[in-house]
């Protein structure tokens, strides 16, 4: 069963078409990285799934049921943009309110548990308004974790987190999917972090799903390359271009994308009277893959 299944979803804001027939499938237990440019429709999609916006057309199903079903919604945790907390309430009281909204019986115990998960148990008595941005994001995550959700919808949860916060977030998300089979839909612009945890990806552009793939498929789609550096970069580029089909300069490196062994490149350059100072083999990451996709030239 899929945790989220969206077919032909449309959303119109006045004359602006935010979503134009979006199809999306999030398998149960996946960490689904939802990627797209600003204004591509990521947040709109998430808000629609959460029932915060009214769709203009299309169908949304959560775990095979209608997305407005209260019983299904009780198993959804969300963090959309910012945690919705009352600024003058303490973190603890804000958490208790949400626990009560979810009808959690041992509210205090549950709140303590989720605050411990996000390492915020020491800040429970702080007023929400006095918390830093990173702390607020963690509180938002803790709030989303209340009631053992089967589906977590997180809109830019990594914003404002320091390196430690990001690491904690990563650990938490991986842990809850492995231990409790929770499905996570996460949108973020920090693709490097997303790449470390996502098992599935969906790339949205102008309100339409460009492609959906698993992490393995992405891995297969991302080519390896040989990166070279040397004293005479221009000369090296000229020589390599004569022999290999795709040679590009990126970040001060010369990259040879053709599937060749590094020894062969070294031997060729040596034969031409030139030796690189540095030679490494690498694979393009999600970020580069995505940028390439957006630019219309996917590096394969």
């Amino acid at each position: 069963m899929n945790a989220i299944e969206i077919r032909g979803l449309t959303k119109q804001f006045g004359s602006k078409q935010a979503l134009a027939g979006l199809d999306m499938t999030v398998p149960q237990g996946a960490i689904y990285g939802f990627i797209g440019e600003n204004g591509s429709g990521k947040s709109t999609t998430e808000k629609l799934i959460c029932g915060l916006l009214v769709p203009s057309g299309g169908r949304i199903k959560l775990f095979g049921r209608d997305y407005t079903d209260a019983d299904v919604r009780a198993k959804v945790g969300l963090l959309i943009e910012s945690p919705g907390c009352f600024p003058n309430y303490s973190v603890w009281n804000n958490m208790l309110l949400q626990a009560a909204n979810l009808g959690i019986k041992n509210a205090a115990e549950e709140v303590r548990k989720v605050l411990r998960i996000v390492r915020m148990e020491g800040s429970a008595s702080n007023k929400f308004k006095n918390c830093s941005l990173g702390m607020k994001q963690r509180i938002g995550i803790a709030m989303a974790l209340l009631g053992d959700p089967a589906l977590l919808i997180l809109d830019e949860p990594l914003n404002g987190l320091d390196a430690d916060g990001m690491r904690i977030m990563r650990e938490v998300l991986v842990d809850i999917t492995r231990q409790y089979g929770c499905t996570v839909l996460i949108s973020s612009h920090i693709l490097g972090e997303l790449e470390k945890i996502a098992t599935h990806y969906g790339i949205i552009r102008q309100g339409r799903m460009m492609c959906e793939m698993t992490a393995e498929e992405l891995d297969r789609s991302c080519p390896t390359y040989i990166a070279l550096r040397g004293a005479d970069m221009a000369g090296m580029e000229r020589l390599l271009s004569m022999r290999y089909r795709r040679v590009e300069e990126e970040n001060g490196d010369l990259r040879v994308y053709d599937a060749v062994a590094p020894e062969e490149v070294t031997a060729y350059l040596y034969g031409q009277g030139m030796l690189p100072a540095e030679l490494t083999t690498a694979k393009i990451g999600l970020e580069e893959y995505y940028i390439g996709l957006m630019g219309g030239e996917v590096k394969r």
Partner: protein
Amino acid sequence: MEGTVRFEHHTFGQRLGSMVKVDFRRMFTQPLVYIMLGVCLVLPVLILVMTTMAGGSAGGGAAMGTFTNVWQAIGTATGAGSGMAMDLTTMCNINLVYFLAAVLVCVFVADDFRSGYAKNLFGVRPQKADYVISKTAVCFVGCAGMMLCYFAGAMIGGAIAGLPFDLGTASVGSVVLCMLAKIFLLAVFVAIDLLAATIVKQRLWASILAAVAVGMLLFMMIPAMTPLNATFLHALMCFAGGALFGVGLGALSALVLNKTSLV
């Protein structure tokens, strides 16, 4: 990785119970309601004492249309002559609470949308109808408290100002029924205020303006519906009106929430 997700059934009663508990907790742990209760307690004292002082004496106030009797701060008996006349006693009496109620309801609801709490709420278990019922109930209790505080304030203010407590054609029983009728009528105003607040959501001033504007249209009817010498029928009519409008406007508020964006 894939497992079976078990969904617990949440009944309407369970959802509403949690929601009401949360709203009561919110209403009575925030300063807003206590400020409003304080205003309702102090306002009649100030009005009665200051207008009596301005009138020179308790008896001489009649010519200026100021208070000559404590009960004028609560209502006017039908057949007393000045029921619909627009003087100070009809403008500055307990019926002001209906406008103050608009402030309480609109701030309470706008807070949900301004803080983002509505996202947490509607994104998970609570349904829009639960929200409207709970808010109506909790705001009604808060506003009823304000009404009682105004009553108490009027009594204190009247005593300080030295105004007579002469009931005239009314009786203690009819005053109780008058207060009951006024409290029941609050349900109509709370429902109107809630509808205005759900339409404009986080735009607090717009919701207060809209609620007060609609309230103004009904304001003239209040003295006739809740006279000081009210009978059981007045209370019953106000109860029925409150229930009908409460349900009708509540359904409209739920529809607004269902059909409009919440963020």
